[in-house]
């Protein structure tokens, strides 16, 4: 089947079965490989993209379900002011280790800050707990989200400060 979907501000024509997950259309047909495959069951968040600004798991989203919605991937996140701030904070704090999950982390974090520019630690926990970082860079992900938001990067949860 033929689908016209809007990705990173461009109309893209794809030939695909209706049930093919958006992830594989992005990665193998459109060569947008920044979005990663981790689990295939929406359990790790590596494949997170934005659908009309909301973070979704592209590994379980059939291409036929996209319709006229606007898809944004990590390759297009610079179009968002929050996306640029998040990426910049990620680089300033050197968040990544292996880096494989980080596109998904940035997509989820950008969606969080877009709807909630001053997240609490609890907000960060809730928004980010669907994204696995196998290297466990959670400390820096938390700090980078706060930095992007212009908040102090100290952890406000129960911590003994000397």
């Amino acid at each position: 089947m033929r689908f016209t979907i809007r990705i990173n501000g461009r109309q893209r024509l794809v030939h695909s079965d209706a049930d093919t997950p958006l992830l594989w259309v992005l990665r193998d047909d459109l060569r947008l490989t920044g979005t990663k495959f981790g689990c295939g069951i929406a359990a790790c968040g590596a494949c997170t993209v934005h659908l009309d600004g909301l973070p979704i798991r592209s590994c379980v989203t059939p291409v036929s379900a996209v319709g006229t919605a606007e898809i944004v991937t990590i390759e297009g996140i610079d179009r968002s002011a929050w996306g640029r701030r998040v990426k910049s904070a990620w680089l300033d704090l050197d968040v990544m280790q292996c880096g494989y999950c980080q596109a998904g982390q940035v997509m989820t974090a950008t969606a969080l800050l877009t709807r909630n520019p001053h997240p609490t630690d609890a907000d960060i926990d809730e928004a980010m707990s669907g994204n696995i970082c196998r290297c466990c860079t959670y400390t820096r992900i938390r700090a980078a989200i706060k930095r992007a938001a212009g908040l102090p990067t100290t952890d406000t949860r129960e911590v003994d400060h000397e």
Partner: protein
Amino acid sequence: MNETDVVESLENRHPHAAGVSRRAFLTASLAAGGGLLLTLHLPPVARAAGVPAAPAELNPFILIHPDGMVTIMAKNPEIGQGMKTTLPMLIAEELDVEWKSVHAEQALLDPIYGPQFAGGSLGTPLNWIPMQQVGAAGRTLLIEAAAARWRVPVHECDAARGKVYHRPSGRSVPYGALASAAAALPAPALESVTLKNPKDYTIIGKFTGGVDSPQVLAGDPLFGIDVRVEQMSYAVYEQSPVFGGRIVRANLAEIRALPGIRAAFIVRGSGPDAAIDMGLTEGVAIVADRWWDAQKARRKLRIDWDPHTRPEQSTSVFQHEAERLMRTAPQAVIRRDGNVEAALASAARVLTATYTYPFLAHATLEPQNCTAHVKRDGSVQIWAPTQAPAEGAQLVARTLGIDPGRITVHMTRVGGGFGRRLHNDYMVQAAMISKRIGRAVKVLWDRTQDFHHDAYRPAGFHKFTAGLAASGRPVAFRDHFITFGQNGRVASSAGLPGHEFPAGFIANLEYGQSVLQLDVPTGPMRNPGGNALAFAFESFIDEMAHAGGLDPLALRLDLYGPPRVLPAPPPQGALRIPPFDTGRVRGVLELVAHMSHWAQRHTLPAGTGLGLAFYYSHFGYVAEVVKASLGHDGAPKVHQIWAAVDIGRQIINPAGAYNQVQGAVLDGLGQALHLLITVDNGRIVQRNFDTYHLLRMREAPPVEVRFLRSDNPPTGLGEPALPPVLPALCNALYAATGRRIRSLPIGRLRSTAA
């Protein structure tokens, strides 16, 4: 960890021969500062020299461009440990260029670079001196070239920030203008170059972001899974759910008729040990123009495997057998000091406990994959996310009957290593499938295949007995370790080293071992041995402290004794290991006690406790304290973790160093809380992240890290910070609840005391 241990752990990751890792050690020698030094021999005159206006290669690691930009080759795979940044930093420091003018590039697999692997936390100790020498050798050439141009003595010239200066005249010339002349000069011997005084460092010790990070966040195709080459097909590879199974029949004709499928065929395994050895296992390859088409077709694949079940290969059977063996004498003695029987008989108190921990999977977030092109002319191109590219090339050469010299391995960025990619099973699959179809192919596993075909962290069982004097001091210690193996030989990463603490620190001590037959592959996982042994030993030592009425910190300080350097183990070949220093143990124990307010722990609210543990591994000394309580739902709540780390005098890149420690601590925390692989009828039960609960953001407590800069050569950081957190957490839960954790994962606890 002593030298036997290092070599053993390296050999463990290569079941056929020690390969590159052993070569690394046989050519290692002791550096002046007491560190491991790799003897690297650079070609006497650089290649591609003498062409003006073209980039000039000063040596295989350094390419100087006319505009002054410098390409520096990173020889080791980047798995998230930061080596693609760290190694070029070492070279750039001594080359005396500004970091902003450096472009780091991943080297191909090539013997000219010396050993190229990511494992054993060895990147830093093996390369700390040699990479600085490589940079200094480049600087020496540039200074010589400038001196020749100016017709002045070399000693009147020096270098800084990408230029050579002539001090008496104040003249300077940028490297870019000198490079082609410098490249034509004979390279100095690496041992002859002079290294900087550390106080003059401008790059080493500075917070330096990962060199690939901007491209990762741009979505550039850096990882193995992102590789695309001309005319490439995609493949899935279905292996036996029971390890070592052979194919009786498969519905290949039906698969071939499915849309988008180019080919479907059986690949015969390379032999009966292929599964255990992580070689070429038997399977069905489905090749398509799109990976999703191959994956979809796989759902319709029906294979009769022989065997299709192995009832005796089940976690429940192993548990039962282990309990039986614990009631018998060990099959073998690993170590026997003094007289344990007599010491136990005269002890004021005898303590026994049984500890168990499960199999674990590596679960790298990037599933196993590889792209290969076996060409008609016999040459092979491989793009692989691997920790051990040389061993992969050897495996491909051996299995396919190819001259290893015709194999080119491109090391992609690796989406997580953790030891999984010390094996190259996915590489030989891609090569074999490419050979069969005569095209380039990318083999990609799905998550369930990744869980079902790992080399697992082995489970284990420990029956401990300790004798305490009336003072509470231990006088006898015994462990009967029940482990796994094949035909009586201990499986990969399933051994108990004879020097495991408290061996050597309690006079009457005995380690015995019995082996259960295991037909499931095992292998090194981040801190092999330590990731399991620390939990068992450091928890039981905490039990001993409480039973004897001693402060767990005081007991450890007492056992390790006054600060002293123990005799270095005898060298093995040219390999020398830094001697064990009890002063460094004391240093991190006292530091973490200070950081965590250990002495005031009795003032914590009821139901909240601190737990302490120390572990020495990979030449690193790490002490950690966990603060924990039990939630209303019975789930442990971890409030905070403190880590004190001694890996020597120099933190090369603080950006990576703190991140490695925090990540390793949280990785270990997740293992302790949740992680479990179950074997049932020869198959792995867990299939995906919905049944294998890696740590999530909401469970990640703050981790405070401090480095204790002792005057020792810098050592690696990928692994040593992981083990202590497991026992520290369990010890904290004991302090908080009175409940002793003797089996992992912890899961949920009832709040009643044991």
